[in-house]
């Protein structure tokens, strides 16, 4: 056992003397987590850049004393409620508005037609059309401007519908005076316009998901969520560095020399396997501590966190070993493992995290042990405990056992 530990110690020390390996293990995940965390807002807040919006208001209103519908829409776009999402500038003509979008100066243009108020009051025939002219390369910013416009238009159409319905209802109820009917319609429209801005009957509140077993909602910060993906991804590279030492020693002839010593080959390989596990475990602990210090990551309860940490290290170590076990040279091992790790990172959501959400993705990522680990860490970050990580841990451990067995088989076949 001491011999195995001696070999493990030698390989571990060797890893920490390799600057390139250290950069992959520590610098890369922390830099990427910092950068991607900054991309989606610092600390606890998720934010996106305000979409540059140009608006042209050609509506002159429906008559003296009546508010112009176009001005109402412009005011809604410029309201403080959407101030963080839209930066609105008024321009003079539809051509200027479209040009601003085409040239990339604006994300979206809202073009209010000349007869908007007249269409609403019925003094002009036909319908009015508010045009949303958007940059085709963008989706989020234009959709926000579109949503604001839709909301105001619903209010316009609602007021008009209420006024018309009130007039017809008045007639149906036997009221005949034109002035009285007009008065009812005007008052109805005014009530709808006024109350639409105030308390809606059905409102929507939002919250984060509450994990089974957690007492209340927990909101993890963005950087810690990104760090989990990066940590698991770069742990694979961390495992492959000491795992490749088997091939390095084979190429340099030192492995053959070791085999001539009175040490069983199983002990030699066992020592190397221990080194791989220790290296990734230490890597994960350091990254988690760095996440706690730099990003104020709240990883969760110590017990489940430790279990998942050890499980992650076992999975990374077994993946590192199995990808190296097929290769013939260190160079081949480096390239093969990089390809496999990038693919696993892709299908497991290490790069995209929760940015891209869709039903099939939840299924696809479960083909990878890293996907299961991502699921487990996500549950802990959202306040989960033993119950919520049990399945991810068991499945990931199952993967680790199988992968380890495969790597042992190939290493023994070649060296034992």
């Amino acid at each position, binding site marked *: 056992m001491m011999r195995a530990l001696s070999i493990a110690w030698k390989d571990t020390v060797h890893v920490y003397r390799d*600057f*390139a*390996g250290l*950069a*992959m293990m520590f610098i*890369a995940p922390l830099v990427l987590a910092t950068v*991607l965390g900054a*991309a989606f807002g610092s600390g606890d807040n*998720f934010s*996106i850049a305000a979409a540059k919006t140009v608006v042209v208001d050609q509506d002159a209103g429906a008559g003296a004393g009546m508010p112009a519908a176009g001005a109402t829409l412009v005011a809604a776009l410029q309201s403080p409620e959407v101030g963080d999402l839209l930066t609105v500038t008024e321009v003079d003509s539809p051509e200027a508005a479209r040009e601003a*979008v*085409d040239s990339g100066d604006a994300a979206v243009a809202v073009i209010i037609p000349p007869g908007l108020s007249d269409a609403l009051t019925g003094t002009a025939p036909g319908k009015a059309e508010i045009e949303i*002219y*958007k*940059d*085709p*390369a963008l*989706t*989020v910013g*234009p959709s926000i401007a579109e949503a604001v416009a839709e*909301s105001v*238009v619903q*209010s*316009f*159409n*609602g007021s008009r*519908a*209420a006024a018309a*319905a*009130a007039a017809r*209802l*008045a007639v149906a109820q036997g009221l005949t005076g034109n002035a009285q009917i007009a008065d009812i319609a005007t*008052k*109805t429209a005014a009530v*709808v316009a006024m109350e*639409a801005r105030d308390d*809606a*009957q*059905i*409102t929507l*509140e*939002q919250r*984060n*998901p509450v*994990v089974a077993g957690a007492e209340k909602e927990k909101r993890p910060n963005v950087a810690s969520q990104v760090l989990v993906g990066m940590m698991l991804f770069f742990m694979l590279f961390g495992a492959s*560095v000491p795992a490749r030492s088997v091939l390095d020693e084979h190429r340099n002839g030192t492995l053959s020399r070791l085999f001539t010593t009175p040490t069983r080959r199983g002990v030699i390989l066992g020592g190397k396997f221990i080194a791989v596990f220790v290296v990734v475990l230490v890597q994960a602990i350091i990254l988690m501590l760095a996440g706690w210090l730099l990003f104020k990551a709240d990883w969760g309860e110590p017990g489940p966190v430790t279990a998942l940490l050890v499980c992650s290290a076992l999975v990374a170590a077994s993946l590192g070993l199995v990808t190296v076990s097929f290769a013939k040279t260190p*160079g*081949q091992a*480096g*390239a093969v493992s990089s390809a496999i790790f*990038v693919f696993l990172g892709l299908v497991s959501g290490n*790069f*995209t995290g929760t940015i*891209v*959400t*869709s*039903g*099939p993705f*939840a299924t696809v990522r479960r083909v990878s042990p890293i996907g299961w680990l991502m699921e487990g860490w*996500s549950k802990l970050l959202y306040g989960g405990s033993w119950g919520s990580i049990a399945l991810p841990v068991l499945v990931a451990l199952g993967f680790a056992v199988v992968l380890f067995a495969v790597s042992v088989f190939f290493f023994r076949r070649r060296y034992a």
Partner: protein
Amino acid sequence: MRRTRHIVGKELLQNLRDPLALIFTIVMPLVFTVFLGFLIPGGDENESGLPLAVAGADGSPAVTQLMEALEATPLLEVKTMTSAEIDEAVQDQKVAAGLLIPEGYGAAVEAGRQVTLTFVRVQTSSGAQSARQAVESVLSGSNMATLATQAAAEQVATALENTADDGLIGAARALVEAQLADPAVEVATRSGGTSVAARMGGFEQSSKGSMVYWVLFGVMSVGGTMVLERQRGLLRRLNAIGVRAREIIGGKMITMIIVTFLQQLLLVLVGRFAFGIDYFSSPAALLLIMVSLSVMAAAFGLLIASVFRTEGGFVATNVITALLLGALGGAWFPLEITSPGFTKVAHVLPSAWLMDSLHGITLKGWGIADVLGPMGVVWIWIVALFVVAVWRYRPD
């Protein structure tokens, strides 16, 4: 020149015989394109896509009406779940978001009382943001219909010096719904650019992202060979027999440019013919972008092969840089969903300008004149990388 040609020939042959180079240059970029293309929500608003889990469908008329309205929204794919299942489904990303309808919703709506629904989402999910807008639009329509009905019924009742009874409210609702079915004002959304059908979608993002992200992996084989050749003293031997440094550098650079250009060409052809991305709207602009991207990758490959003495260091730097350029430059996700200031910082890097230019030619009808500015930034990077690479180059 003859020696440079020989080096290029040898490198190309070596690249061709290297199955790993094939994986990094062709297989992985194609897998990335297809996989991310399916995952990223499409830009087509008629496309059904975002799964929304709804709990609390108790069968009351108000809930049935709400469910029908949600199901009629093209952007949403409604799935019914229990409230206990929703949190887990959202957290595991089985659905884009969840909607909890509280007990007594139907009764509250009937009675005209206020009621609050709960939208469960992961904060950073762009799909959840889109789903929320769609849900809010449905609720806004419902609120407006209710408000208009009540206002009409109450005003008429007041005129009749009476109170609005169920009969009057029912008649008002029918009239309001008839009016709302034929609105006086509509919102029409149009995209700029030459193609009316052009929209940002999943494959638009993943195809271009693959080009920009994987191009650095395309130089891995040639750059790695250069590091090995230095380690084994081959570069020094070449130097000793009179092959000049510029011939070696030229040979390596040209090979990397050829390999990455062919890699891009394959991705462009797949993007055009498999996913309908309009890459050929301006062939000259596309050619300039592809050449710039290849030369940039080659200059970068040469730089790290010159700086790093071990294969491990070369591979590590290559992978980290590709990840950074991809993440920062908008190759993994659109920059528009990032925080204020991030987009500006991202545009220090060549990858962001390359992505902008590719979006420009496929979605906005950009021509050669439009991409000259962005490519100018890329070429500043190329010159800087190349100068440092040549400065750092040593045959031993």
